[in-house]
């Protein structure tokens, strides 16, 4: 029996979040189980059900490298340093 991953979109500005999973014999039953198991008190205004086998997964090792791309972000330390230097030059 296929396992589906359940994503819910709460009302408001937030996007879909992963709510959990369920086993269902087909899409129609998956929709029924989703309503009964995950949306009993308006937890979502939209739901996505995706058969787990169709999800493409990237694991932490593959993504780790992106956390070290210093050139892709700027913590402002150089700007601070330059500003400091300019202030000091101005007071001397």
């Amino acid at each position, binding site marked *: *029996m296929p*396992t589906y991953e359940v994503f819910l979109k709460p009302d408001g500005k937030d996007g879909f979040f*992963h*709510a*959990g*999973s*369920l*086993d269902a*014999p087909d899409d129609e*039953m998956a929709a029924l189980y989703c309503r*009964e*198991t995950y949306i*009993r008190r308006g*937890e979502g205004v939209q739901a996505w059900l995706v058969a787990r086998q169709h999800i493409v*997964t990237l*694991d*932490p*090792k593959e993504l780790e490298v992106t956390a070290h791309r210093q050139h892709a972000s700027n913590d402002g330390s150089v700007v601070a340093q330059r500003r400091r230097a300019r202030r000091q030059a101005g007071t001397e």
Partner: protein
Amino acid sequence: MRVWETMEDFDQFIVNGGTVEPGDDMPSAYRQEVFRFIEMHANSELFGGLCERYWVSRAPGVHRKLAFLAKTQDEIGHAHLLYMVAADLAVKSRAQMIDDLMAGRSKFHNVFHYKTHTWADQIVIAYLVDAAALTTQQAVLKQCSYGPYRRILRRIVSEEGFHMRHGEEMLLTLADGTVTQQNMFQAALDRWWEPVMHFFGPPTKDGDLLIRWRVKSDTNEALRDRFVQKFVPMLQEYGFVVPDPALHRNASTGKWVIGDIDWAALRATQSNVGPDSAARIELSKQSWDNTAWVREALHVP
């Protein structure tokens, strides 16, 4: 997939606040411990739902019937969520877990090994047992190292909160009711206080793996004590007597101290030979067998 070369590395990862995910190459002892814990939680939710179902038609009035129906569905729903999380640990399939439970090979919480004699018993369960469950679940939710369990607990804990408030509302109805209603609740409290104290488990041993790996964040005694400090004064305020002759207030700390606990009854429930274990397991098996045609109709294995 993350891999830890040694157990020391894994322990350090946990100490540093790491979260383990299903795809990780976690140590098999960790996998087993987490699985065992979640499976028991799932079994208990399912049994809780099945036991409560008995009271849906017996609850006084349409409002209470509907509330009980919703609560029963929540408990069965929690079991469903937890079985999915447990199955992803690949120790047992969902079908195996259900088979083991129906055959009496699995454990479930001690409180579901007892008979509910009156409507007041069910209120004690709805209030005190749910509060005890909430106390333990909040302690897991706080910093559990297994990601999927922690995330699913957030939802479960929020729904248990409704149940507890519903339980307190029903308790207050009896507390403010006739003498017969008050006596009925007191009699139920007398039956259930010990099982509720047992619910938190025997004193946690040194080196407990669930604590070491931050599945649980507090010892059983600490959780029991947290519950006692909150609910003893509350029950007294509502006019009831906590059935523990040794219960007293420590003069210097002002904290409530309970008497020694006799663990014999808890041990019986842990081996599925509690007062009502056989009947409870049989009831769930009947319910499972009676719905076989539905699974068959849906071509569900």
